[in-house]
């Protein structure tokens, strides 16, 4: 009798929560500020003369609002979150603590250099760790997230090529690549040439070789790739690129498979971004902020963007302008010095694990993924043979005879208390399910996830697919009308709407 309806609409601990605009009143206020001194205005006639229209709420009501909203979210803290390509690993609380230390959380980016030596040293130390782990000598810390890191990598390549006299025209991107790859290529002024896979989930070498001509600036390759597989021809690919005078960009979103075990610099890669919010445990925060430092080979390092931190006789300096740089930076892609707060967290994470621990990270991540592969490949179809790296890709072939889709299976997992894997990505297999367990999940959790998937597939195959097709039932909301949302977009609250909604 849990389909009981309630008078209030709340359901036990699950509260329905209106918008702040429906809750607030202009009179209320959740802060107490002193009365401003009476001064002669210097706003020069550009004063605001109309109300903003913001709702006012008391502090208790604000706390309750966001408390209730938070409870409608799935999270790593709450459960298994095997989103492939996203590396939803545990986010240590120590990182949050140190990021808030006075002298780290509150410093201003334009304080005199002498007053931020610790911050610069921290950035430098973080950079040195990343350089050591990737085996690549150059680094730009500033990109705001992975996608911006990609762009920076390509811009650096383009600048190096321009320096040689020809920026070239194309960037090769495998079909399995993340959408940010072609989008970044485009934002860097390149056209994309798509490369198919070879049927084994890797770049089709022939197609690659065919596409590789003197107009090609670079290849953007994710490694391990988005099928969870190591590109075993990577060294050949690198050589071919270099022979063609092109550069090798690696999308490092999947570095969690390699950290401590493989240095991309040893594979012939010229530049690669790192998602600190993936491999290095900085929180995803519901969609950011991230941080996407980029590492460079000797050949590219001189063109990296500003700012940069250097050490000179134990003093740390911030290079903010080309004229202070010994190199040929191509410019600037972000305000100030990058996502400093994320450098703090990532360094705290790296120091906590240390070199041994980081090596164990990739081992356990790969072990966990292969365990899923082994325990699920009789009920889900494996399009490409393993072993996989840190994530395993299934397609929907085993559901083919049923009415159930990848989406349905994902939604049914929500009822089971799991966040689904990444679905319908990569695009190279039908109904993709990409599972990345990460190393911070234990065997017991994996076993329970495996049992759930097995049970659900069994249900689907036993003709009980309706349960899956109508799932989820037990979540704060059931399936949402996404088509309607896009057809008639409502992107903000409006007073009229509220009246209409009554």
């Amino acid at each position, binding site marked *: 009798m849990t389909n009981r309806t309630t008078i209030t609409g709340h359901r036990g601990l699950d509260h329905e929560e209106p918008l702040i605009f429906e809750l607030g009143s202009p009179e209320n206020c*959740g802060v107490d*500020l002193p009365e401003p001194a009476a001064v002669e*205005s*210097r*706003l020069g006639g*550009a004063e605001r003369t109309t*109300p903003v229209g*913001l*709702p006012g709420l008391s502090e208790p009501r*604000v706390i309750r609002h966001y408390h209730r*909203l*938070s409870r*409608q*979210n*799935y*999270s790593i803290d*709450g459960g298994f979150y095997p989103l492939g390509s996203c590396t939803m690993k545990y986010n240590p609380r120590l990182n949050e603590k*140190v990021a808030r230390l006075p002298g*780290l959380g*509150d*410093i*201003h980016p334009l304080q005199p250099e002498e*007053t931020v030596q610790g911050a610069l040293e*921290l950035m430098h130390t973080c950079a040195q760790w990343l350089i050591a782990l990737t085996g690549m000598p150059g680094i730009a810390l500033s990109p*705001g*997230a992975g996608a911006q890191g990609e762009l920076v990598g390509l811009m650096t390549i383009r600048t190096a090529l321009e320096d040689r006299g020809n920026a070239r025209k194309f960037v090769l991107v495998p079909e399995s690549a993340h959408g*940010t790859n072609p989008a970044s290529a*485009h*934002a860097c002024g390149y056209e*994309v040439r798509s490369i198919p896979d070879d049927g084994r989930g890797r770049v089709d070498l022939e197609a690659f070789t065919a596409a590789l001509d003197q107009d090609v600036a670079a290849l953007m390759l994710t490694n391990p790739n988005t099928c969870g597989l190591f590109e*075993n021809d990577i060294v050949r690919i690198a050589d071919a690129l270099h022979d063609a005078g092109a550069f090798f960009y690696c999308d490092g979103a999947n570095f969690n498979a390699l950290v*401590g075990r*493989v240095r991309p610099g040893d594979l012939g890669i010229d530049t690669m971004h790192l998602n600190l919010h993936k491999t290095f445990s900085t929180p995803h*925060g*519901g*969609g*950011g*902020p991230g941080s996407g430092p980029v590492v460079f080979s000797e050949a590219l390092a001189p063109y990296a*963007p500003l700012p940069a931190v250097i050490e000179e006789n134990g003093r740390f300096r911030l290079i903010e302008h080309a004229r202070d740089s010994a190199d040929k930076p191509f*410019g600037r*892609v*972000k*305000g100030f*010095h990058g*996502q400093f707060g994320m450098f703090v967290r990532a360094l*705290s994470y790296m*120091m*906590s694990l240390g070199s*041994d621990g980081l090596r164990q990270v990739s081992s356990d991540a790969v*072990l966990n993924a292969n365990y899923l592969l082994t325990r699920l490949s009789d009920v889900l179809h494996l399009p490409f043979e393993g*072993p996989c*790296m840190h994530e395993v890709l299934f397609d929907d072939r085993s559901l083919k005879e049923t009415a159930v889709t990848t989406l349905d299976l994902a939604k049914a997992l*929500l009822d089971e208390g799991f966040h689904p894997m990444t679905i319908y990505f990569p695009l190279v297999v039908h109904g993709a399910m990409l599972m990345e367990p990460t190393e*911070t999940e234990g065997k017991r959790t994996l076993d329970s996830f495996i049992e759930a998937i097995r049970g659900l597939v069994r249900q689907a195959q036993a003709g009980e697919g309706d349960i899956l097709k109508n799932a989820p039932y037990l*979540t704060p909301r059931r399936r*949402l009308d*996404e088509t309607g*949302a*896009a057809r008639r977009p409502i*992107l903000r609250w409006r007073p009229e709407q509220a009246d209409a909604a009554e």
Partner: protein
Amino acid sequence: MRYLPLTEDDRRRMMQAIGVSTIEELFRDVPKDALLEKAVDLPAGAGELEVERRFRQFADRNVSPAAVPGFLGAGIYRHHVPAAVDYLIQRGEFLTSYTPYQPEVSQGTLQYLFEFQTQVALITGMEIANASMYDGATACAEAVFMAGRLTKRDRFVLSGGLHPHYRDVTTTMAHFLGAETVTPDPDPTGREDLTALLDDETACVVVQNPSFFGHVRDFTDLAEACHAKGALLIVAVTEIVSLGALKAPGDMGADIVAAEGQSLGNAASFGGPTVGLLAGRAAHVRQMPGRLSGQTVDVDGKRGYTLTLSTREQHIRREKATSNICTNSGLCALAFTIHLSLLGENGFTRLARLNHANAVTLAERLEKLPGVETLNETFFNEFTVRLPKPAAVVVKDLAERNILAGVPVSRLYPTRPDLENLLLVAATDTNTDADFDALCDGLKEVLS
């Protein structure tokens, strides 16, 4: 290792299940000589206490603006953030969730983003806003390219009053797109007139209000001039609190607003992460980059929210997307929206008045010091003063006296001797009369 739950026994049993006897077998696709046999040459792991000690050492080598009188701004401002904000954003359900791709279990994030979008639209006076960009500088660049797509033009005029980082980021990115950027010299007196630079190729004009030098203007005329030429007016805002006291860009006729939202809810954090705001016209939504949370209903008819219009985005449109942005500034947007919910109409406008009043008080005091001249007739909470010496020297001297006096313009324009003596000074709600005394006394000393 405290973050790793697998025991040796688990590992053994799992390898057995998989059918391998060493982990290395799982790495068989890696070229042999690229597989490291030993750990990388880096320090060993450390316990919490040890790591914390190390970070305290880093912190101790910085001067915390909480501990000294400080007047730094230039795009990052120190405001008091209520304790409720930092508690709420650390709740695991917010901190450790991903982008809300499964809306059924992400209503918390989706609803606050919807509220955030509404708040940003309200304070900027625009119709719609997206769910955040990396920061103000990248929001500015994205706004410019959005204008380019909308007007199908690629000449961008960037005011000299635009924050140099915003200009640099936009110019850098435009360069790779093969677009032209027009960047008039900065005029610290705030009398720049951009109408002359408008032509029929111009996609947009970008101004900043208050400007980098602090000047406050009403850009209604410029908006009209832009529109007459078929160009768009983009207003950048680096101090979002100013909108509590100033006419909204939307009310001046702005087409796009690109702003830095750090001032609300977010610590300075040495400049990042912060939160970029992007607001515009509803008609332009399909050219707007970044995520959008939209209202809809679920199969039971209950109101709910979902990411929408994602055909604009890279994961669907790939190279044809409006931007390559993916991860943005969710948690900083959350901090922003919580702080603004706490403030509400009264708090937000009062906070703005308080900032202005403090800045006026300080300006009036500085104007009385011999040799110190304010360049601003108008300003919000930051203004430019001309000193009788290079500002960088003065700032350094004052730093030795434990005063963070402001930002020397030369820090951002090192090649402009004419700007060498200029100092940007900001005063916010966190400054006290004692701070003002310290700065005035300090200045008197180092200038004498």
